[in-house]
């Protein structure tokens, strides 16, 4: 039997890769993908917990997360499209209107 | 004394709802906006008259009281009521609002409906401040008043309005925040209650009293404004539109002094007693400083603003003299100052509408061109310098009497303020109305019927209070006596309580 910690460790590593990807990439598409990565990492740990605790609630959570992820991807990409239309930019260093 | 409607709530919320109603009127229909603002303010005034007529002058208790639970879990109540100290201010507020509406009739041309809505909102909040018997409610009204006032200065003001508005806002906000801290401390100290009446009978330990006294002082002293927190006033007055100046001078700055009477003294009597000499010294500085600085002014509104500093110095001097004449004189002088300075600002607004200049040096010889206006201005000038027979005299005399009884030196120094007052007001009058006619004054019409009607009520009050002040003084008798007893006996009660505890 694989210990629970292994799953969580895997999940943590992928999560951090997602975080790092979000932080260091300039391309907004990749950043959105990094978010998906993070969500999936969380999903993995939730499913693992669900399995080990013999409780389906974790999986229900995953179900919701997938829903939200889908919605998020849709909206995020829609924003990206309209951003691209307006500014022809997909790199974060080109979008610095919030500079103080 | 049964009145069929909750009079205080009506007087507070009628203008507020009226303001919302005005916002719904179509922007282009300015006539309707003005007339409905006038109607609302007049109706409010008429509804507030029962306060004057059926007020029971024999008791110091809160009258026309209304109490409802509001947020019971936090001990917040919706409690209103007036006593002899506050009732006159309610009436003054409702009266001055009408005059503000009429004086702005032609001078406000931009964002008309927002202007009148703001004016009515201020009225509601002002009355609310004077009526609240729940500290939480009080604070809400206190702050609520700030926003429309800020807008009044910042939107309809003169060229430097934004600076003035922000200065006004920051000053008062800083003071208010300190008071908020004080309110929270009081709330905890009174057993989770915001009930002002309950606080008035609670004795707090002296150290706490002292801290709270200063916390509340910060809020009120800025409003008054006491020296040296006065520098926002000239800017705010100078930049505000006429109605804004009138409200500011007439009511808003009275709230500071009212706060002293309603909170600082009955809630922290021992601290008030201990701090009274310091307060009186600050007051006398304000009187003299505010007076002398007037002589160096070149701007009409600024001069009157600084004269307010001087006059409010008299008010606080009287209040902190802690004797009957002083406090009654102080309250009366607040009313007087509201009338006189309010009227002076109305007058200034009227001539500004014609000449569009506030520089004193641009004027001269206006008495020839605008004789009726000059006559009105003269009466208010005389009232301002405290000529017997006008209201200014009664207030100032009682204050100096009270101040002199409390401290001879300070009384004498305060009396010099009367000389200075005569000097700067007559200097102003001469520059504006006498001598050769200035080019900017030439060719203007004298004030019309609307403007005369705006000033007449104030003229009547000037002489009414001057000749028969007892109408107004009798309102305060019981409440002031009660207040003085509270201040004087608080120390005794505390010692007695400690003695009892020791025996236990």
């Amino acid at each position, binding site marked *: 039997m694989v210990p629970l910690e292994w799953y969580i460790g895997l999940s943590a590593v992928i999560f951090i890769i997602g975080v790092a990807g979000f932080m260091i990439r*300039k391309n907004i598409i990749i950043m959105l993908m990094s978010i998906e990565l993070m969500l999936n990492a969380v999903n993995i740990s939730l499913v693992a917990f669900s399995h080990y605790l013999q409780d389906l609630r974790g999986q229900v959570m995953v179900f919701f997360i997938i829903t939200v992820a889908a919605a998020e991807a849709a909206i995020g990409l829609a924003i990206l499209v309209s951003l691209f239309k307006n500014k022809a930019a997909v790199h974060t260093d080109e979008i610095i209107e919030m500079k103080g | 004394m049964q009145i069929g409607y909750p009079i205080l709530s009506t007087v507070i919320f009628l203008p507020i709802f009226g303001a919302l109603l005005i916002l719904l009127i179509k922007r282009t229909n300015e006539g309707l906006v003005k007339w409905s603002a006038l109607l609302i303010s007049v109706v409010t005034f008429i509804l507030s008259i029962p306060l004057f007529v059926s007020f029971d002058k024999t008791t110091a208790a809160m009258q026309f009281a209304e109490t409802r639970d509001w947020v019971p879990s936090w001990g917040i109540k919706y409690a209103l009521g007036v006593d002899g100290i506050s009732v006159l201010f309610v009436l003054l507020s409702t009266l001055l609002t009408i005059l503000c509406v009429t004086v702005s009739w032609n001078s406000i041309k931009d964002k008309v409906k927002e202007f009148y809505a703001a004016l009515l909102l201020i009225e509601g909040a002002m009355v609310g401040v004077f009526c609240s018997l729940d500290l939480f409610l009080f604070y809400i009204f206190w702050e609520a008043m700030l926003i429309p006032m800020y807008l009044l200065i910042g939107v309809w003001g003169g060229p430097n309005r934004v600076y003035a508005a922000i200065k006004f806002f920051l000053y008062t906000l800083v003071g208010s925040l300190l008071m908020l801290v004080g309110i929270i401390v009081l709330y905890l100290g009174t057993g989770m209650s915001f009930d002002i009446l309950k606080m008035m009978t609670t004795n707090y330990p002296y150290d706490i009293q002292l801290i709270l006294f200063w916390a509340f002082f910060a809020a009120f002293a800025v409003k008054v404004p006491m020296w040296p927190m006065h520098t926002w006033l000239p800017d705010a007055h100078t930049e505000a539109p006429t109605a804004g100046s009138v409200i500011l001078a007439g009511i808003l700055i009275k709230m500071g002094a009212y706060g002293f009477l309603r909170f600082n003294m009955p809630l922290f009597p021992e601290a008030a007693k201990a701090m009274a000499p310091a307060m009186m010294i600050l007051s006398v500085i304000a009187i003299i400083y505010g007076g002398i600085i007037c002589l*160096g002014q070149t701007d009409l509104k600024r001069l009157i603003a600084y004269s307010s500093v001087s006059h409010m110095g008299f008010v606080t001097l009287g209040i902190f003299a802690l004797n009957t*004449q002083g406090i009654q004189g102080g309250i009366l002088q607040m009313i007087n100052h509201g009338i006189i300075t309010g009227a002076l600002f109305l007058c200034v607004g009227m001539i500004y509408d014609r000449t569009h200049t506030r520089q004193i040096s641009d004027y001269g010889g206006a008495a020839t061109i605008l004789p009726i206006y000059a006559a009105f201005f003269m009466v208010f000038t005389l009232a301002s310098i405290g000529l017997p027979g006008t209201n200014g005299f009664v207030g100032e005399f009682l204050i100096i009497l009270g101040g002199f009884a409390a401290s001879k030196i300070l009384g*004498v120094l305060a009396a010099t303020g009367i000389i200075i007052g005569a000097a700067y007001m007559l200097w102003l009058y001469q520059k504006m109305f006498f001598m050769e006619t200035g080019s900017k004054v030439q060719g203007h019409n004298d004030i019309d019927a609307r403007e005369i009607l705006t000033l007449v009520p104030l003229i009547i009050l000037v002489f009414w209070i001057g000749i*028969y002040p007892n109408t107004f003084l009798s309102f305060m008798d019981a409440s002031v006596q009660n207040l003085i007893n509270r201040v004087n006996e608080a120390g005794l009660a505390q010692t007695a309580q400690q003695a009892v505890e020791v025996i236990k």
Partner: protein
Amino acid sequence: MDKYVLIPLLPLTAFVINIIFGKWIIKEKAHWIAILAVLGSFAIAVSAFLEVLSGKVINYDVYNWIVSGNFKVTVGFLIDQLTAIMLIVVTSVSLLVHIYSVGYMHGDGGYYRFFAYLSLFTFSMLMLVMGNNLLQLYFGWEAVGLCSYFLIGFWYEKKSAADAGKKAFIVNRFGDFGFGIGVIMIFLMLGSLHYTEIFGKIGTLQGQAINILGYNVDLITLIALLLFCGAVGKSAQIPLHVWLPDAMEGPTPVSALIHAATMVTAGVFMVARFNPIFNLSETAMNVVALTGAITSLFAATIALVQNDIKRIVAYSTVSQLGYMFLACGVGAYGAGIFHLYTHAYFKALLFLGAGSVMHAMAGELDIQKMGGLKKYMPVTYWTFLIASLSIAGIPGLAGFFSKDEILWLAYNHGTVGKIVWAMGTAVAALTAFYSFRIIFLAFHGTFRGTHEQEHHLHESPKAMTMPLMILAVGAVAAGWVGIPAALGGSNAIAHFFEPVLGHPHVTAAHEEEYMVMGISIAAAIGGIFVSWIFYSLKPEIPKNLAVKFKSIYTTLWNKYYVDELYDFIIVRPVKWTATNILVAVTDGKIIEGIVNGVPAAIRNFGERLRKLQTGYLQHYALSMALGVFVILTLVLIAKGR
């Protein structure tokens, strides 16, 4: 409601009617309302006087004016012997001045306004003298000051007039400052402001002292001197005399009524009214006597060299007021009021005569440019001459009796009395000199003005000469009620005043009184004689003297530089402080500096903080991650323990 209330109320009504309707409806008929009102007041005043004469004293309250705690003041009237005589003086002079003004002010743009102010003044003055308490006195006191302000500045387009009005008001405020504090002290010490109660209780303060800045000051002396401060201001005594000569900017009838006959005498009236207080303080009495004597001499010397006819008369007023204070200071209140009463007539006459001259000269005031007016305006000349003789103290005329009474009583009042008597006698000589200087320069000799002026010369209309003649009768006969016993009279007026003002009992022999009388008569005649030599016989003498004693002459000509001194030590420093210290430094730099400094520091910090806001998405993400890291670390540390 009874008739006494009407005495002040009638003029007040006239004022209200004229000021409200005068501009549109009444216009040129304004004088009717005003004159009728004053006439009514005069009639009632006479009837009140007769009642007082029969021994009745009227004292009652009308209503409660101010009630605050234990402080209670009413509006009420007290008519005793002192008030009664004042009522007669005020209403009669006022009536005559009203009538005179119909002619004098004819055609002026502010005709209705002028009569409205006159009515208001009459009302205020009556309130002042009739009040039965100090605060009402104070009310009248300030109100007459206000009317004086209005009337001095009546021709407000003229800068000098507007300045003079303002100066009068503010200088008076200095006196009122002391007076007001005196009122407050009296209330605090005695618990009341009503005359009867004050005089009843004042004895209890005797011997009490009050500590002021470490000095023990006798309480009664302090109160008396504070009250006297007010009198000094109102009656233009040194050092607050500066406003009265300037007040001549007003129309001449005003100068006659306010600045000669009535308002300026309010100070004397007040000191006399409070004689029970003054009597208790030797120091205060001496101060009053010496102030009066010094002012009297001081003003008389200035009057010697002035050329403006109204200013000479004004300085003569200051001088005569000094006389009245001199009398009060030596305890001769009755004599002081007697002089007040006679002075009202002959001084009003002098002013109205001067007005008549001005009327003829089209506003010219310089006596050096007049001359020989006698033949053009005989009524004016003769009445003016009578007034001058009266003021100089020629026996038989009003001025003689009152002046003589004062000098005689002063002479009998110890050392201080002797000093002030000597000064008073000197003043008598000077008075005669400068009064006749006007006569000789203006009415005798040849005309020195321009041709147009000479062409314009005419006697004044009836409305103006009538009052002159009536006043001339007063200037002659008013004194006959006070003929001293030494001259076979009964000195009726002194006895009339005795219940209120007391009467110093002089035991000296009649011979001594003849001597004093003789000296003052000699002084007066000597003054007239010298004046005749100087200005009629050998006009080159005064010019030579002016050159020879140039420094003295210029000092006198510039009125001892008092105005300049005040300007230098009070007006300028205050204005300088206002603009250069308070506006520029304290408010502008220090307070504003602190006030603006704090927000500026915050803004500065904010400016720097803003740099953190790069707008770069990843920077926010990085800081978020940093935050997560920090919080997690903290949580783990907290849990680990």
